[in-house]
């Protein structure tokens, strides 16, 4: 097997809720290979969003280790976690989370600005990834003027900008109709296979199974067989 682009090993996450400690993840281990699409399924409260947050270096595990793009992330320092996110991880959210005041192009360009790319190079790169997701004719559109599927494409372009090795998607088809959802999943698959990115999709959508190389279930903080 190829060197994984993303790995979590024996990850435990405990949240303090008042006087109680709630163990949300109870020793989770999984790896994602380059070009692999992994569907992560589970009922509400099973710990899949927590696992996604830990994989995305937004949360740190109570125990266990995380490895992103060949680098072990053992720091709890916010600036180092931010650096990993900027460098190696792209996010796609259920609600798109686009900036309403920015055009499609600016949404992607701003993301590149945050990652350290500025000026003409950022604008060109943003236009390039938007072309790639089929929105070359919608660069100057505000999110309010785009359909749900187009918004999600902008979100995908934003996640792709800067060429991260890992894409983490949280219910990316939940707000889309069947046709748009299918198109988005096909796009995800093409991007993963074409660029060798590791892709984890948290979902309840059975359509995702069709494009996933592997389906991983999670129940009560443990990966199910």
């Amino acid at each position, binding site marked *: 097997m190829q060197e994984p682009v993303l790995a979590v090993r024996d990850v435990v996450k405990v949240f303090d809720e008042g006087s109680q400690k709630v163990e949300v993840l109870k020793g989770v281990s999984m790896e994602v290979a380059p070009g692999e699409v992994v569907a992560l399924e589970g009922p509400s409260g099973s710990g899949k969003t927590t696992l996604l947050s830990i994989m995305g270096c937004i949360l740190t595990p109570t125990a266990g280790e995380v490895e992103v793009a060949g680098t072990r992330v053992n720091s709890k320092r916010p600036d180092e976690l931010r650096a990993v996110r900027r*460098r190696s991880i792209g996010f796609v959210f259920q609600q798109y989370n686009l900036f309403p005041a920015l055009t499609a192009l*600016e949404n992607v360009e701003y993301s590149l600005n*945050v990652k350290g790319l500025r000026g003409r190079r950022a604008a060109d790169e943003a236009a390039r990834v938007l072309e790639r997701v089929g929105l070359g004719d919608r660069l100057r559109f505000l999110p309010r003027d785009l359909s749900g599927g187009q918004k999600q494409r902008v979100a995908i372009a934003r996640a792709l900008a800067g060429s991260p090795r890992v894409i983490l998607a949280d219910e990316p088809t939940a707000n889309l109709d069947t046709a748009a959802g299918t198109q988005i999943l096909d796009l995800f698959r093409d991007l993963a296979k074409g660029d060798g990115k590791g892709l984890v999709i948290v979902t309840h959508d059975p359509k995702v199974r069709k494009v996933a190389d592997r389906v991983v279930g999670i129940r009560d903080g443990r990966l199910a067989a």
Partner: protein
Amino acid sequence: MVSLARKNLFHDRLRFFITVAGVAFAVTLVLVQVGLFMGLLGKATVTIENCGADVWVTSKETPNVDFAHTFPETAVLRVRGVTGVQRADNLIVQFMNIQLPSGAEEGSLVYALEDFRAWNLPWRVDAGDVDDLKRGAYIMMDVSAERRFGPFEVGEYREMLGRRFKIIGTTAEAQSFTTAPIVFMGYKNAQEQLQTLQGKTQYVLVKLAPGADRAAVIAELRRRLPYNDVWSREEWARRSRAYWVVSTGLGMNMGITVFLGVLVGIVVVAQTLYTSAVEHVKEFGTVKAIGGSNWDIYRILGEQALIAAVIGFALGGLLSLGMQPLMARLHLNVLISPSFAAAVFAGTVLMCLGAAMLSFRRVATIDPALVFRA
């Protein structure tokens, strides 16, 4: 670089308008109120600043130029004997009632000198010759007196303390802080008007010889005139201003106005920026999730505050300048000097940045994990 700050600010136009209007209101309030105060305060020292005297000798503890006390007029001889003094003359500044044609009486502030021209008083003469003042029972009145005294013409007579004076000229810009119109008359005439002024003066004006050491001359004058105060022009102007600012509570009044103006600005800007920050929590969470730091978000809020400050100041400044001619019609002088405007601009920027900082704590606690919540 994409400015999320600017785009967000202009995206919600109503909020932007409210923010800018709040800043503009605060700026206008401060500029006009303080400008009016400065204009008024300018009257407290207008004669000091236009008079050709480098040094003023006053009676002990004279609080300001309008409220003069008498001392023997022979003091001027001792002043003239000091090395470095080119010229020294007595000056009387005295309130005297003036009888109006209507039968009413009004107060006036008389400036009396033997040689007005030598001291550049009055500095703006619209009609008449100041040299004629010493040649008889003559006066010159400032045109601003028309508001209090009614219309008057050169050649008319007015009675002051029972004696008729002929108006032989008019002046402009000579106004006192007390609003009593300034009347110019000969030194001897003024002394003859009041028993208390016989053989007395109220000030000695001193002009220094070219190259004279002002500090040394002042020190020598203080030594020779231990029962008087001796002030440089700047010290005397400062003292006169300070009297009205501090002793009358006007300064406190103005300070409260400025404070309220700034408070209004801070409340409006802080409130709108804070609400905006709360409404954009998910966006800020996204900024953090994609790798942005708290400082990236602080910069957004700071830039928004700065834009609001610049545009609000520009609008408030224009509004204040527009009010100047309107106020002038009401005989109110709104004095907005470049340095004052610069200080208000700096204050506006600080005010807006300070207001933005109130939102910093809120955005610092934003958890980027919220981006995964539906």
